[in-house]
């Protein structure tokens, strides 16, 4: 299994509070991704990173920011959480030097915003 750890695994918080989710990898992969998964929507890309300090927006980036200060860590921040951001968040990593390698996913963070 790819070495990906997401923390926390579960979180309940209130509207308007800041929330940070962490993704830690031990594979030294260059690319890291944050997705959200909602019923009826599959997985949608929030932000991704293609190297330290190199990030870009995905399909549903509004209300989220990310940071990557070292290869192994990719942080997702909700500056002021809203109920619409209640979701399951998955981190993924990939080594895109070879196109036949899939993205590998972490175990997810279940986030509830009340």
């Amino acid at each position: 299994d790819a070495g990906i750890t997401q923390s926390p695994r579960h979180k309940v918080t209130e509207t308007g509070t800041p929330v940070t989710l962490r993704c830690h990898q031990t594979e030294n992969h260059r690319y890291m991704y944050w997705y959200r998964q909602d019923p009826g929507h599959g997985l949608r890309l929030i932000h991704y990173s293609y190297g330290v300090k190199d990030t870009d927006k995905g399909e549903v980036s509004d209300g989220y920011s990310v940071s990557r200060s070292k290869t192994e860590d990719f942080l997702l921040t909700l500056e002021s959480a809203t109920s619409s951001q209640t979701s399951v968040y998955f981190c993924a990593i990939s080594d895109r030097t070879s196109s036949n390698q899939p993205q590998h996913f972490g175990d997810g963070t279940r986030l509830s915003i009340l």
Partner: protein
Amino acid sequence: ELKVEQNPLFLSMQEGKNYTIYCNYSTTSDRLYWYRQDPGKSLESLFVLLSNGAVKQEGRLMASLDTKARLSTLHITAAVHDLSATYFCAVATYPGSQGNLIFGKGTKLSVKP
């Protein structure tokens, strides 16, 4: 803009039967992936399809890719209960290794005795 459609979204099968899940996508791409997700779990990679006519098989599952028709299929042979899960296809947004993935909404498969 790349769109990915899977059908059916829900599939209830009897054990021993065969069925096919379809994944259509709207623009040119050279990579397609199939994933499996069990309830409350992470996504597990099943197949990577890289070229027109590619076919991959693992146990009772076989995936194929037709890039000209922009279609991939996941065929289930003689279904068993252990195959019950949600299956996602994901398509790279543009040719080459730098494209990100767009996921279909998933097909929830339930195999009943």
